[in-house]
């Protein structure tokens, strides 16, 4: 509601501006203040055929080849050009717009169009596309943050047209629909909502479009900002939509009936509605044989559980429930803690803080320094703090393992969430021991059950329980078992492909 009201007000402001200054000259008066704005007549005759553009936004080569050459080099017959509309016949560029609308001229000028006027003060102008939108953008599109060993290594780029091109390469059908909206009052960013017609439920597309259109913000840097605006619930550490830089992941999501949102200038694409298990699925699972894929997926799920609960269980057991430790283990545990003067909570918080510090520092530092830092942090600080009796050996192992385990999550946003979740559990465990951990678990379960992503429950297919969708959740079943799209996405057609029915004729062993 808040956003909507502001939007309406903004529109009114804009209208007021257009009514006052229809004049294209006023536009020129404004843009001339910038040093990179150029305006000059194309012919010798001054005040005739004036071209104006931002020097920094247009492609110089195109300008010379397609426009200057035409008017300057060959003897130019002026009589061929009587009206401005005739310009289309002379200049060999496909995107030429003739308009007398000042606002359109302004927005196109900023997108890298050149304005051509027949005479000075002419209201009717031609807008010629000369933009150079690849300049300054990254060319390399290797996957960097969601790396996989097997499978394609293609990621998205900052250039939205290239991203759509990458999608169209694999979803080679006219059903792939891209809907464009402009968001950001200053940046005027192109945002594209992609879905596959005939598969994706209209409801998801509409919700996504509606929420995107309601956004009122000045500059959109990245899709992760959009993500925060369109989430169902912002009071949660969990990402409710899935951000990814991998092309195969987005293709998979679209094929299953999800919606993808691309934004110009962002190499991350968000897909939704997503469920919690989506964040633990790596595309690599689908490239490995299903048994291995399922095994690694299970390892991922368990490592996440360990990463969340490892240190809090340590605190609970050492502080309150030492009766639970068997005799044989007790000796080695108490030996390692013998000279540590702190209560387990402080010990854990100290070590967890160190690990978080290393991580945060490792991300900010340049790659080469970062590696050294990892070694210094991991080995030197760890060993030294044990020798200085600040922490116990056992805890060092647990903290290091749980840090390692949290890296197995394929999606970075989710691994951040897991990093965060540890701390409330440490808090509960230090107050109420094992009961505290279960209280934390209960909070977590209730919270997850309450969450929704674009109106779809976040914990589906577990709750609401959908046994038919379980084939590709914790376990990645073989391709012959997963020919259907997940039901909870309410796709318009349920079959993805039809597996060959090579029925086993033999019901007995070979004789």
């Amino acid at each position, binding site marked *: 509601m808040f956003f909507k009201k502001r939007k309406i007000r903004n529109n009114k402001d804009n209208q007021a501006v257009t009514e006052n200054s229809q004049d294209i000259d006023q536009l020129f008066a404004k843009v001339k203040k910038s040093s990179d704005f150029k305006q000059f007549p194309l012919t010798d005759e001054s005040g005739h055929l004036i071209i104006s553009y931002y020097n920094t936004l247009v492609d110089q080569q195109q300008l010379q080849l397609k426009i200057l050459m035409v008017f300057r080099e060959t003897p130019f017959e002026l009589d061929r050009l009587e009206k401005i509309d005739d310009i289309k016949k002379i200049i060999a560029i496909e995107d030429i717009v003739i308009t007398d609308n000042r606002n359109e001229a302004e927005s196109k000028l900023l997108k890298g169009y050149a304005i051509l006027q027949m005479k000075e003060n002419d209201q009717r102008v031609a807008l010629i596309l000369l933009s150079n939108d690849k300049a300054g953008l990254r060319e390399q599109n290797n996957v960097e943050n969601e790396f996989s060993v097997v499978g394609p290594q293609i990621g998205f780029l900052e250039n939205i047209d290239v991203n759509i091109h990458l999608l169209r390469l694999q979803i080679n059908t006219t059903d792939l629909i891209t809907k464009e909206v402009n968001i950001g009052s200053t940046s005027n960013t192109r945002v594209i909502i992609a879905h596959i017609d005939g598969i994706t439920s209209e409801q998801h597309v509409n919700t996504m479009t509606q929420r995107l259109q309601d956004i009122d913000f000045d500059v959109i840097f990245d899709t992760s900002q959009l993500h925060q605006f369109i989430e169902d619930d912002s009071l949660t550490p969990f990402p409710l939509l899935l951000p990814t830089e991998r092309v195969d992941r987005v293709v998979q999501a679209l094929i299953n009936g999800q919606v993808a949102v691309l934004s110009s200038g962002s190499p991350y694409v968000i897909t939704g509605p997503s469920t919690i298990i989506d964040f633990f699925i790596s595309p690599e699972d689908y490239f490995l044989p299903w048994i291995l894929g399922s095994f690694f997926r299970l390892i991922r799920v368990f490592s996440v559980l360990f990463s969340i609960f490892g240190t809090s269980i340590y605190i609970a057991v050492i502080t*309150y*429930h030492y*009766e*639970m*430790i*068997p005799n044989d*283990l007790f000796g080695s545990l108490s030996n390692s803690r013998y000279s540590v003067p702190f209560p387990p909570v402080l010990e854990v918080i100290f070590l967890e803080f160190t690990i978080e510090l290393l991580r945060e520092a490792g991300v900010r530092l340049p790659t080469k320094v970062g590696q050294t830092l990892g070694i210094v942090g991991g080995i030197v600080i760890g060993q030294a703090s044990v020798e200085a009796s600040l922490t116990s050996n056992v805890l060092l192992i647990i903290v290091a393992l749980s840090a390692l385990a949290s890296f197995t999550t394929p999606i970075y946003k989710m691994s951040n969430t897991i990093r965060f979740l540890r701390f409330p559990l440490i808090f509960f465990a230090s107050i*109420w*021991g*094992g*009961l505290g*951990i*279960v*209280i934390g*678990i*209960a*909070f977590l*379960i*209730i*919270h997850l*059950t*309450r969450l929704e992503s674009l109106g779809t429950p976040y*914990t589906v297919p577990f*709750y*609401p*329980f959908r046994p038919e969708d379980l084939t590709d959740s914790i376990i990645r079943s073989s391709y012959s078992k997963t020919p259907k799209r997940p039901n909870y996405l309410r796709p318009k057609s349920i079959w993805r492909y039809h597996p060959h029915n090579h029925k086993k004729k033999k019901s007995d062993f070979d004789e």
Partner: protein
Amino acid sequence: MKSLLDERHLVSSFYVFFLICTNIIGIGIMSFQRDITKDAGYDAWISIILSSISIHILVWMIYRILGIANNDVIHVHKFYFGKWIGGLFNIFVIFYFLILALIVFRVYIEVVQVWLFPLMKTWQISLILLVLVYYIVSGGFRVITGMCFWGSIIPFIILFPLNFFSLEFANFHNLLPVFNHSVKEIVSSSKAMLFQYVGFETLFMFYPFIKNPDRSQKWAHIGLLFSSLLYLIIALITFVFFSEGYLNQTIWPTLTQMKIAKFPLIERVEFIVVSIWLLLILPNISVKIWAGCRAIKKVINVKQRISLFIVLVLFFIIANVLKERSQIERLNEMYSNIAFYFVYLYIPFLFLYIHIKHKITK
């Protein structure tokens, strides 16, 4: 059969299974063995079966009653008994659910204090638990059902297998001779067993929240069957593990028999058991409190958010006032008497009354 509520708030009929299970198996499963063996000795497993059968019949009756009205019991009371008598019944229903929740809540706190933290103050644990309950109930019925789902699956997977470790020391002769108690003894033990099933009446309140309620009856019966099987298995394990004299001295036999389990990494699993048991207790309390608050809303039209808050504050106060075990026991006894009459007299009465009325008006 069109539902009265928005589709968004409904749960599918399959979840009635979990709702019934978590509502029945709450606090009782840890301690019911002693109560039922008081009269019938080690023939008490027969009374588990008998009371289970009777509850099946009652569930069938509830479905008939609500099927005719296609609404909850508050509406039934208002519609068939008029504003005043119906209102009186409704107030009774509100207290019936809330006090049941209170008993479960207070007994669980007691278990925590006995088994986990003897020095823990009641107000600390009750405060955090009530915050949890508020978080669940304020999420609406779908969230409560979700909690029932997780709260029956996780404890079942982790806790139920622990019972079997005590079979190592089983003495199967404890069960013999069979049938050496009189019918009267077995019936009175069945009456004691009834209190363990109390809670299934919340069906009276959540019936309108089920998608295709007429198809859910199957799941209600399966849920009931499942929980009575659970009672039966645990009782049988207890009977072969404990001698009768020893069982009479044990307040929480199920916990004691689970204690036997030992793993290379963990000993003394009762700490885990009591903690994880919370996941079962939470939905159990929440459904009843939700039922109470929903009834309050329908009777005097107070927002559930407000009534829930008031109820939880009252819970907090009463849980702290009830200090002694004897007080809790007395409340428990009083309540089980009321529950007995409510379940075995009132439900059949309502069933007959509504059927007759229905026939006449037709």
